[in-house]
């Protein structure tokens, strides 16, 4: 089994053409002859970017869950829902399947992403040899589930807009919407910044 970095080869991140990259230390990379993107062995400053984005996402995580995401007014009632109370509202109405989906997408996925990416970055930085195949699979799973957390933002946006038309009630987005969308976008950027090849490098190059 030959690795690209040992053979002096790297695939262009943009068009996947395999290019000879002469000098690994050369930070500028080599221009891809097919699409002119710059080709490097590894993503630049991947670890720093991932950690910075994760810290920012973690900071937004608390307001996103503690604050109100949606106000509903239908005279004489007025309710304020957080993400979690929105899930229990669905559960209480008997939509258990949907309540579980929203719980998974809005509460479990962001926590799992923060935890799993943190674990991947730390284990790769410590040159861990623990089940690299399983860690790679974990990373691929993070890439797939990342954007499903946007679910609640769409629900709030849709309800607001649709109810506005009907005039029979008022639904307004709460202060948690922006931090929540921020968590989703930042964790998506964080997982895109992570270089999975670091799992397999075992400290060949920093």
């Amino acid at each position: 089994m030959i690795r690209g970095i040992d053979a002096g080869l790297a695939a262009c991140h943009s068009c996947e053409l395999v290019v000879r990259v002469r000098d690994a230390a050369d930070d500028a990379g080599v221009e891809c002859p097919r699409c002119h993107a710059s080709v490097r062995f590894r993503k630049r400053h991947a670890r720093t970017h991932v950690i910075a984005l994760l810290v920012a996402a973690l900071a937004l995580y608390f307001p996103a869950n503690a604050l109100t995401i949606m106000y509903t007014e239908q005279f004489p009632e007025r309710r304020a829902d957080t993400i979690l109370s929105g899930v229990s509202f669905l559960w209480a109405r008997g939509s258990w399947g949907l309540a579980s989906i929203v719980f998974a997408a809005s509460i479990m996925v962001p926590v799992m992403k923060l935890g799993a990416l943190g674990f991947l970055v730390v284990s790769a930085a410590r040159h861990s040899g623990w089940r690299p195949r399983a860690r790679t699979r974990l990373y691929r799973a993070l890439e797939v589930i990342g954007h499903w957390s946007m679910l609640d933002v769409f629900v709030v946006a849709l309800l607001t807009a649709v109810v506005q038309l009907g005039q029979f009630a008022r639904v307004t987005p709460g202060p948690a919407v922006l931090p929540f969308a921020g968590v989703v976008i930042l964790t998506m950027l964080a997982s895109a910044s992570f270089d999975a090849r670091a799992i397999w490098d075992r400290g060949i190059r920093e």
Partner: protein
Amino acid sequence: MELVICSYCDTVHRRIAAAGRDTMRCVTCGSPIYRGNGDLGAMLAVTVTAATGFLVANALPLLTLTSGGHRTQATLWHAIVASYDTKLPFVAIALTLTLIVTPAIELGLLLWLLVPLCLGARPLAFVAMMAALRTLRPWRMVEVFFLGVIVAVVKLAALATSVPGWGMFGVAVMAAALVSLSSFDLGALWRRAEQVAP
């Protein structure tokens, strides 16, 4: 001999032909590297389906609401305009971006690339268009939006009677077609473009 490198673990492989819709996986880490389905004609057909779904989703009502004798047909455009008028610009922007702008750009790019390639010509600005398509893809959220419509319908039941309309069918078709498009290998476009290059 053409080489491919696994983007997850950096293992170098020799490219072999993939049969049918097979996914070729890395021998070291098991990640998918490339796929067999490089049929550009099929890809164009799915793109046209997605574009049809897009038009239906934008033109026809997503929901019909009934409350206290009032009947409202909520099309996407009306919903966006209403939320913009009532000082909720973020809601209007979020809906416009996810349901109109990003799918329109993605479908536009795909048509721009696939129509000339299927006719045996190199698309104008091929490299830039491919780069744009690749950058845009991870941010497509139509399928999440579709699930959002379902959740919203259930939550609305507490406030009014709502019946899904044809627009929602359009969203479902567009979401399904765009998801299936991401299972096509973009590498096939690069190879075809090199064959037809002047």
